[in-house]
């Protein structure tokens, strides 16, 4: 009986991996030869919405000035703009930098938080209460938006069905080391192919929490951001879709970000993402399937996106399962030529699906030499398997141990205060 369960589990893992591989191929083919939907960036409209730009900051003295100055350089009617840097329990010079800039620019209206829970969801909730605009644009403290970014993001809210918009994140510190270059490749695949294909196919592009925006009234109607959630962006994405709203993706609204330069910082970041994302999975799984507003395709894509941080967990346990079966002498799982062919085909093509996707993204970006680094992503993915599994275990605790509270883990910055 135990052997049978172990064998069935191996098959389940193979099926799950095959589904995700097919998904990667679907998106890649769409980007290569499929119909590409336009984003609203090409609209020129003299009637723009009033916007509040929120920038949560906790000990961001290394990046705060650059980020705020980049936002100030953005072209948007000043009478329709306010910038709210949120000083979230900072202990360094962040508050002084914000105040210095606020004294020089009327559009900057700082919010200093010294009480209550620290973390992005809590900071955003406080800012939503003081924001004057209906449309909220969010940048992380290390982000450097281009001059047209605010307009290009805000214009999407002319569409009455759009609840949130997401732009493209581009790593700025790619030259630092191999890790930053691998993260650059991963980001390319995730945005240039994955997000854009989901936009093209009427699926579920994800609001990523930065270089994006949402409707203030909607966020407040959901009770604000859930402070137990470490992936407030994913949480908002699912709340919007489940309630009949859409998220649109703006591939040409590009914004530089700083990616982690050490494996330790990256591990902590992705563990936090896994923990938050998996918590959201527990929270919205049933509601997603029951939503009357979503098509079958949206539900399927939403389900696959919702469980994406579960895949490494399945993979790790599947490998352990295979090892156990091997030592039990039970590796003859299914006696079928068809299944053998399926597994062989998967080994030939399925395993490489994410690599094809990332390669395609680099091709579309017109930067082909970096594709040479693709094989090194294998080590990166292997490292992620354990980190994400760790995050999943923490999410289980967050979900089922009521007294446990997730603490926001700030990502370390590597940039100095040199001019952009």
């Amino acid at each position, binding site marked *: 009986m135990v052997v049978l369960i172990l064998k069935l589990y191996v098959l389940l893992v193979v099926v799950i991996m095959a589904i995700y591989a097919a998904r990667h191929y679907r998106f890649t083919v769409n980007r290569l030869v499929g119909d590409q939907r*336009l984003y609203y960036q090409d609209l020129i409209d*003299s009637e723009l919405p009033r916007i509040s730009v929120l920038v949560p900051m906790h000990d961001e003295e290394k990046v705060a000035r650059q980020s705020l100055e980049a936002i100030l350089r953005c072209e948007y009617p000043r009478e329709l703009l306010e910038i709210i840097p949120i000083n979230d329990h900072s202990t360094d010079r962040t508050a002084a930098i914000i105040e210095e800039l606020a004294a020089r620019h009327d559009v900057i209206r700082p919010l200093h938080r010294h009480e209550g829970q620290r973390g992005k969801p809590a900071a955003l909730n406080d800012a939503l209460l003081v924001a004057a605009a209906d449309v909220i644009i969010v940048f992380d403290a290390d982000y450097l938006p281009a001059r047209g970014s605010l307009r290009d993001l805000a214009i999407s809210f*002319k569409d009455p069905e759009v609840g949130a918009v997401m732009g493209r994140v*581009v790593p700025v510190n790619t030259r630092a080391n191999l890790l930053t270059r691998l993260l*650059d490749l991963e980001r390319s695949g995730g945005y240039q192919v994955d997000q854009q294909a989901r936009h093209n196919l009427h699926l579920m592009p994800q609001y990523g929490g930065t270089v994006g925006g949402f409707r203030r009234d909607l966020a407040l109607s959901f009770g604000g951001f859930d402070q137990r959630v470490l992936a407030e962006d994913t949480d908002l994405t699912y709340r919007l879709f489940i309630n009949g709203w859409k998220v649109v993706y703006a591939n040409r609204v590009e*914004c530089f970000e700083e990616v982690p330069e050490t494996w330790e910082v990256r591990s902590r970041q992705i563990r936090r993402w896994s923990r938050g994302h998996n918590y959201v999975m527990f929270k919205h799984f049933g509601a997603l399937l029951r939503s009357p507003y979503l098509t079958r395709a949206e539900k399927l894509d939403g389900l696959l996106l919702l469980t994406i941080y579960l895949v490494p967990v399945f993979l790790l346990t599947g490998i352990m399962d295979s090892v156990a079966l091997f030592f039990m002498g039970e590796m003859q799982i299914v006696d079928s030529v068809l299944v053998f062919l399926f597994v062989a085909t998967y080994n030939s093509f399925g395993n490489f699906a994410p690599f094809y996707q990332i390669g395609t993204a680099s091709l579309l970006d017109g930067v082909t030499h970096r594709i040479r680094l693709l*094989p*090194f992503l294998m080590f990166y993915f292997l490292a992620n398997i354990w980190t994400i599994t760790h995050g999943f275990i923490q999410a289980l605790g967050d979900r089922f141990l009521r007294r446990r509270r997730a603490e926001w883990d700030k990502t370390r910055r590597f940039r100095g205060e040199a001019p952009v």
Partner: protein
Amino acid sequence: MTRRLAGLALLPVSAVAAGTAAQAFPFAAVLLLGVFGLLIVLPFIPGLAEIWRPRDRYPLPVDMNYVKDPRYLGHAARALLAAALRGDDGPPGRRTVNLSKVEAVEVHDRLDISAGAQLTAIQLARGPMSVGDRAVCDRDIYARAGARIGDGAALRSLACDGRAALGRGVRITRWLDVEGDAYVGPQTALGANAAASGFLELADGVTFERLWGAPVRTTGYLGPRELPGAPAPFALPDVQEIRVVEDLASLHRGDLTVGPGETFDRPLVVKGDLRIRTGAIVDRTVKVYGGLTLEPGALLLGDAFVEGAVVVGEGAAVRGCVFSQDSVELGRGARVGAPGLVKSVVGKRRVTLACDVAVHGYVLTDGLGSVRCRDSD
């Protein structure tokens, strides 16, 4: 060499056959491990080379100064030429300047290019300029006063600081940018971008990709004539007879037809087709998953975001933007936007304009843009 390698590969087999397996095994194992190791390492070699001598380590290029500007090409070309010729008030003649590459610029006080002439240098006219019929210029032309382009002329691009009049069948490969009003003759191809700070009037058969004007408007071809004045202001009628069509829901799952007197208390999302009947006024923005049809005389006061085709009937009007992932067809007398506002018409696959159409702002298509007066007449 090949023969020697083949011999090495056969060696273990021969050795086993000769009963010396014990000595041959290490060699075979080493060879096997070597090949295995090589195959493992092989995919990483290009990457190792990239790490050792990086050729592509810089961030993806993001233009931090990018702002949507429908006149970007014209402004950039003027600025580039002005920088290259800074302080050059010398007599007319040929100069060599460094733009994006070394280029020849011919400077004229007044430029009259004769019919059928072929020019290969950039042309700068400090005064008025005319281009004769069927003349060809494969470099940019910049006129600091008005310009008249003869029938059948072929230009790479034209920047003009006064009024511009393009004749019949002109071919512009890249862009047209006019600081003033522009009249474009029939059957003219406008290239990737045509913009005017004043009105941009297009005759029958004009093809385009992007248009910018205050407004962009169409007429039938009436032969040589004075450039017409601005069109009569488009007055928005008062919104009356408000009645809620749906019970507080903005979502309509099937096709919907809106008749006169019906309106909405919130923006409307229609999962099927939306038809706005003659005399009806919709005073909210609409999102339509099917097609949108405004029957003759219908009025939409908000924006239209449409997955399918948009047909704006004769004399119908949209005060806001029209955005379609498919095509947009503006019938005779249709209006988009209003004086004092800037609005857009975007049709991914096709935009077709009939006679007497005015769009206050921007028109864009990734496919074919054309003016078809006669079909509508």
